[in-house]
């Protein structure tokens, strides 16, 4: 019979009470661990949201999105102004134009194609004539007009205006994006699936990147040639943007695009990277001020993202507080139960001291006894946490995000019009923050383990310190006194 078995035996001297303590402790520790896991999971989600599109701002000419609206194109000088704004880490300009097929293009309207890279909800019937193209190409569009295309191609001011031209006589224009770096208009890297990225950005460059479906339609491979206006371009690489609209486009060097289209110094949009998502709103305002509200429209895709992140931030705070509170509760339970145990066994402690036990021996015995309870509580608590973490994390998140109205874009994805592109950024505005957050997946990372370990150790420390201090104070003479 050593001190260890005596401690374990003592831990279960009062089985009902010890059982109750273990259960309460398990709930508190389990809740603490679940909150920690939720906290870490939400933190990871915030990081991934922030790193995805969180700190990008798009600058468009005032009153214009893609091929719709009006206004004057942006200039290289404005790009420099944008780059000078505080918190801007980089600003890149692109020139997006629509190219009609050499064979089928009859008229060329004046609309300068522009806009973001991704397709978005088409806005049928809005704006001027449908397919304005500003240049020609030998490429044949991989996208069939369909009824959206028919409607967009109509000349009337409403989508229902009678269309004189026969359907087969037109095809969907191809979007050419002039880029100064190997990045999309949205600022992300182009997903090259074959060949290489652009590296000759001179005005006389003949390099081009071709979307996968467009390349297939036109039987293009890396090294194949096609024409844009009067220049023969060589396919430097193929890319896959992940959607049919994007993949029906090409990327050209910016300077080459400007010279081919006679739009020297003109840009259709900027993609501005902000140093941190926390500065997006202020930078958005600063950009508008710097460039003039009458000249540019500055949109941040992060209004939802911000609300998503701020609601997630709330969840993060709640879970952190709950973690600390649960841990504190567990500590308090251990504290109180040990005070109780020492008090009711004062006389016995007196006996042990009277027959020669040192403070240390008795301290160790009671510390071990507390550890038995803490360890059991932790083990059961960990099991509780395993099953509770995921539901708790998701319940916390859904309870704390305003469920915005979720507007679905038209099925079929991007409209057949390059102009639709500009709307992809704002489409997010219709979707709730909730949709953006999705579900929170919980997993146990090393941080969780370390923090959870520290938390449990803190409880264990209370379980060690309290009995050690309290038993040391008991004098051997207490043996002669009853309770």
């Amino acid at each position: 019979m050593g001190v260890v078995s005596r401690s374990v035996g003592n831990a279960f001297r009062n089985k009902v009470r010890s059982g109750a303590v273990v259960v309460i402790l398990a709930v508190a520790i389990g809740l603490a661990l679940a909150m920690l896991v939720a906290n870490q999971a939400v933190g990871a989600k915030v990081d991934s949201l922030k790193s995805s599109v969180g700190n990008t701002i798009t600058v468009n000419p005032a009153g214009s999105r893609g091929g719709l609206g009006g206004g004057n194109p942006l200039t290289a000088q404005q790009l420099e102004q944008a780059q000078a704004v505080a918190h801007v880490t980089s600003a890149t300009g692109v020139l997006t134009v629509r190219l009609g097929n050499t064979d089928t293009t009859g008229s060329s309207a004046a609309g300068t194609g522009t806009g973001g890279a991704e397709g978005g909800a088409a806005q049928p019937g809005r704006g001027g004539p449908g397919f304005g193209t500003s240049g020609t190409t030998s490429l044949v569009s991989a996208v069939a007009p369909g009824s959206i295309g028919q409607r967009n191609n109509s000349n009337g001011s409403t989508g229902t205006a009678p269309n004189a031209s026969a359907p087969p006589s037109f095809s969907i224009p191809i979007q050419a994006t002039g880029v100064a770096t190997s990045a999309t208009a949205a600022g992300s890297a182009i997903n090259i699936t074959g060949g290489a990225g652009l590296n000759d950005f001179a005005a006389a460059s003949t390099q081009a990147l071709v979307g996968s479906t467009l390349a297939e339609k036109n039987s293009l491979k890396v090294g194949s040639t096609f024409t844009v206006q009067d220049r023969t371009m060589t396919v430097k690489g193929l890319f896959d943007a992940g959607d049919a609209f994007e993949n029906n486009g090409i990327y050209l060097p910016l300077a080459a695009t400007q010279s081919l289209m006679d739009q020297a110094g003109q840009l259709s949009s900027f993609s501005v990277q902000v140093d941190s998502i926390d500065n997006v709103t202020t930078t958005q305002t600063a950009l508008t001020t710097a460039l003039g509200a009458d000249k540019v429209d500055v949109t941040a895709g992060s209004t939802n993202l911000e609300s998503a992140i701020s609601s997630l931030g709330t969840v993060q705070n709640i879970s952190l507080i709950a973690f600390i509170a649960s841990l504190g509760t567990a500590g308090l339970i251990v504290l109180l139960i040990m005070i109780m145990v020492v008090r009711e066994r004062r006389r016995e402690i007196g006996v042990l001291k009277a027959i020669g036990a040192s403070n240390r021996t008795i301290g160790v015995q009671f510390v071990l006894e507390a550890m038995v309870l803490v360890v059991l509580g932790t083990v059961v608590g960990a099991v509780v946490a395993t099953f509770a973490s995921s539901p708790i994390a998701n319940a916390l998140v859904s309870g704390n995000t305003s469920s915005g109205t979720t507007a679905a874009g038209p099925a079929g994805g991007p409209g057949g019009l390059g102009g639709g592109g500009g709307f992809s950024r704002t489409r997010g505005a219709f979707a709730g923050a909730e949709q953006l957050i999705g579900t929170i997946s919980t997993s146990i990372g090393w941080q969780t383990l370390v923090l959870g370990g520290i938390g449990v150790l803190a409880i264990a420390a209370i379980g060690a310190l309290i009995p050690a201090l309290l038993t040391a104070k008991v004098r051997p003479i207490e043996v002669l006194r009853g309770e």
Partner: protein
Amino acid sequence: MLTVKDVVKSFNTGDNTIKPVNGVSFSVEQGTFAAILGKSGSGKSTLLSLLGALDKATSGDVVVDDVNISRLPDRKLTAYRRDDIGFVFQAYNLIPNLSAQENVMLPMEFAGVPHATRSARAAELLNQVGLTEEMHARKANRLSGGMQQRVAIARALANSPKLILADEPTGNLDEETGELIIELLRRLAHEKKTTILVVTHDRALAAQTDRRFRLARGRLTED
């Protein structure tokens, strides 16, 4: 050799101070079997607790083999209680959830005796106080009062102390068992040179001792 000089112990109970031990002085040679008699509440247990270093005297000295235990630091007192003193409490004070044998093993565990040795010695001591083998593994709180008393005596003998302080060691025993215990204590005193102080109302026990003291009104006198 145990020498007590002018020991006073006072308690504050509310407004008045009581002195159950008030200027006690006496001296006994090593190996003496002595009895302390006195009325209930006369301060016998209080005096014993001072000799056993369970409590500190308000004033005066308790000198055991030239060591004044009234002046020892707590750490040394723990060792003194463990190695030099065997205390039999009036209320036995066994650890209720441990078996008889485990209770007897406790002081030896604190003294660092290996498990096998202390287990064997505990069994031997229990046999000496007349507790049969089948009782050794029984939980202390399942033993009768007399059995508990004998386990308490066995526990006091565990570390072969040079001073045994026994508070009413035969109070709950029948005549025959009482005789056994008295004989055991007497042998210890005379053969092992253990000083034994017993507090008792038992005339049979008092008659067997070498010296008899009487405690009354805080003073100790020899009969």
